[in-house]
């Protein structure tokens, strides 16, 4: 399985971890971006940021620079 940053994800994947800890990570987890959750990129804003993603069945907007610290594994390995 290939892993990418959430900021580089196109389509679907599963969140596997974070590369930044503390409050940053806690905030993401509390809104539903946690390891094991399925994530799908829906669209991006005008300048490529923010990124609208769907985790669980919640829609969340995340800034590109925050998404860089979230690691996602691609399900079908492409």
């Amino acid at each position, binding site marked *: 399985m290939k892993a990418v940053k959430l900021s580089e994800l196109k389509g679907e994947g599963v969140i596997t971890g974070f590369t930044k800890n503390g409050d940053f990570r*806690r905030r993401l987890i509390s809104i*539903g971006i946690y390891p094991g959750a399925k994530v799908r990129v829906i669209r991006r804003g005008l300048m490529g940021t923010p990124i609208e993603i769907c985790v669980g069945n919640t*829609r969340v907007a995340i800034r590109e620079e925050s998404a860089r610290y979230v690691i996602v594994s691609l399900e079908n390995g492409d």
Partner: protein
Amino acid sequence: MATERKTLKVVFVGNPNTGKSTLINALAGSDLKISNWAGTTVEKVSALLRYRGYDVELVDLPGTYDILPNNLEEEITFKELLSEYDVIVNVIDTGHLERNLHVTLELAEMGRPMVVVLNMVDEAESRGYEVHPEVLEEVLGVPVITTVATKGIGVWEIPKAILKFAVPRPAVVYPEDIERAAREIERLIKRPEKRWMSLALLSGEWSPTDIPKEILNSVKDLRERFKGRDLFLEIESARFESARDIAQRVLRRRKEEASLDITDRVDRFVLHPVWGNVFFALLTLLVFRFTFLLSAPWVDYIGLVQEVLGGWVASLGLNPLLTSFLVEGVINGVGTVLSFAPVLFLLYLAISFLEMSGLLARAAFQLDALMRFAGLPGKAFVPLILGFGCNVPAVYSTRSLENFSERLKTALVIPFMNCSARLTVHVLFAAVFFPNVAPYMVMAMYFIGVLVAMLTALAMGRVVKSENAAVFELPPYRIPKASVILRQAYNRTMGFVEGAGGVILLAVVLVWLMVNFPSPEDNFLKLLSNWAVGVFSLIGINDWRLISSLIPGFIAKEVVIGSLAVSYLGGEPFQAVGLWEGLRALAEGFASALLGTLKGLIGMFWLPSLDLSASGGKLGEVLRGVLTPASAFAYMVFILLYTPCVATVSAIRQEFGNRWAALSIAYQITVAFAVSWLAYRLAVLVF
């Protein structure tokens, strides 16, 4: 004989936007009380419900994604959860059960009696789910109720369930060694929340200061044992796994979900890079049109009431100084406070609607890139946009931002957003001095304001860097209930009148004193202004009267015009008004205000036409005599940038303390001087 009534305190907790306010509204009807949480300006809504011999206090806690707080509002919820109360009502958005359950499972570890409300089951059902509350009831061992708050369905089961006082059983299964460690800490804590606390301590993400040293020490020892493991992540994962498992059993799919729901379809347009931005630009315009067209008749009416009351006082034939104090100090002061109310009420109405419908989050999405450029969080656009209407609610609304530095940054930038009070001054000056290009001059003021705001934010971004995760939820579209929105807007407006009213009143009285002492001819205001002429002549303003009007402008900027008129044209003597004459004027004024409101309701969908054809009348002529176009331009810029008004300053003081309020005043006055000097120099070359 009165029977003894028992009192109960019930706190409503849950994710943001799950329907807590709507539920409390449905239960308590009109018995709603609004106040602030101690030490903050975050509004506290509570209601009294009389139910079977109980006086039940229902408290609406700020929405939270997590028990451990991430921002000021969540902090309040957290503190409250550890305080004295009888029952927790956990409100859940059933359509997003899995994430909502995360908070539920944590709450179940707090060891307090609890009721779970699965709200919005209508949405879950329409998406093809069958809801099984009995499963959750079985897991937690507490009453679980299904409701549709907006229709009032099921809400009366809540008080019934509250009286069962059932304490939930913790439902999450943690890895065995973590469980054992948690139990060890639990033994040291003598509070009902001991399980939740021990896990939070063990996770290493909670470092409270008011916990005995020996407990913290043993936590430290225990954490040593887990070296190399990420306890926080393991604990959270266990919770999410449980939540997922439970959610799958409570919500069962009856039929396939429609491939695209309404939210998806609307978002294709609203979040479209082009059409979405056009839509929000028009929507913003509409919100302002709505606010100003509908409030103007009532602001005028308040003015009329002031005039009539003043007339009545004048007709009493009291000592002139006393009459002046009553009319220009007291009546004028109260009138000024009240004249904020229509604008704020309508603005809050619009914002509440946008917030509850889900549109506000979309606007944040569209504007996020711009906010990011200025070094501000995406959510900061709400306070900034509000600032164009009125800076005061804008400052209060910063409390939804994540942390102190982000809130502060935003609050210090807000005063440069050109509020509607300043607009009145700009419109007059533009019409008088730049009749051919008046609309562009007014627009230029907005641009300069935004530019200074951006630069301020950028400069501060260099000083205070934010390390926060920039995320926010895009909730599904919902149609809010009118009664809830009306009540919320009313509560917030009253909150302002009570909170800032005193300060404004005081300022009005102070200005009255400055105008009337030592004598009306040689008053303090004149003395002060004459002294300041030296500085202001740098920006081409040499007449003390122009400067003296800036001080009353500190109360509210629209006052500048009235005060200019008085100092150049002389004040009008108080017109005595007879009782009947006054009453008739009031009745007629009321009728025409109603008519004006109706006209506004239709007119707001038309494009605005700033009426800039007026030459400014007599005042305009006089002003043309004392100011060159260049210095008039500088004066406009100064009005734009100098300290907005006492109400804004008092809001900043309430939110951030004396030091920051003082600093913000000093900063704004400095910037106002610097920029208007620059504007004057440039304008001298151009005009």
